[in-house]
């Protein structure tokens, strides 16, 4: 009973909530702005292709990925850390 309550039931609840979220957003693609997004995306070539084939391509991809993640994770991290330091009691 414990295994069910502590592990299986939470998993089922998460899956149920996720299903409800997915069901709710299905209607998004019928919205008027979705048509414009669809047209733009259809005209945009896919950014991601195959894995890098040469060492130089690998280094370039590594640099791009590192820069992207440093920027997108690092900046919120720095801002949040600063705010926490100022708001948390010592």
């Amino acid at each position, binding site marked *: 009973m414990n295994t069910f309550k502590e592990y299986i039931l939470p998993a089922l609840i998460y899956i149920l909530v996720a299903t409800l979220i*997915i069901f709710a*957003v299905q209607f998004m693609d019928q919205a008027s702005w979705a048509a414009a997004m*669809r047209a733009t995306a259809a005209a945009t070539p896919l950014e991601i292709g195959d894995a890098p084939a040469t060492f130089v391509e*690998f280094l370039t991809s590594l640099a*791009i990925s590192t820069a992207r993640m440093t920027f*997108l994770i690092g*900046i919120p991290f720095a801002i949040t850390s600063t705010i926490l330091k100022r708001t948390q009691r010592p």
Partner: protein
Amino acid sequence: MQQPAKKSTSLTQFKLILDLLVLALFITVNAPQLTGLAGHEWVSFVFAAPFLVHLILNWKWIVSVMSRIFKKLPGETRFNQIWDMLLFTMMTLVIFSGTIVSEKALPALNIHIEIDPFWRSIHTTFANLLLLMFGVHITMHWKWLVSNFRRYVLQTN
């Protein structure tokens, strides 16, 4: 009476290892230029399981804060409550949109879905937003991560 403390220690240790795994997989998934599209899609499927286990292991906290949703909560707890709900929603949408625009993994399993460019656009946009949100989530739990990393991985007091 030593058993409960020991059980709590191994659970914390397990949570730490799991969270580090989730972090490593999350970073790998978000480096599609390195893995290529096929690698990105397959790693994403692998990511889903430890992510679900991460949620399950934090179920008690989620229940305790959700049961007090209309009651007074400390500021940080309230922030984590709202942020984590948004994070879960975003993660769900990114995984869903990514699945339905799969070009390598699902076709390899003989599942063919007509790709809608709208969901491809949603997937890219929300994935970038998710990275930003993830940075905040990591920061909010940074102290826990660092202290337990020192204790269980570096094994310093």
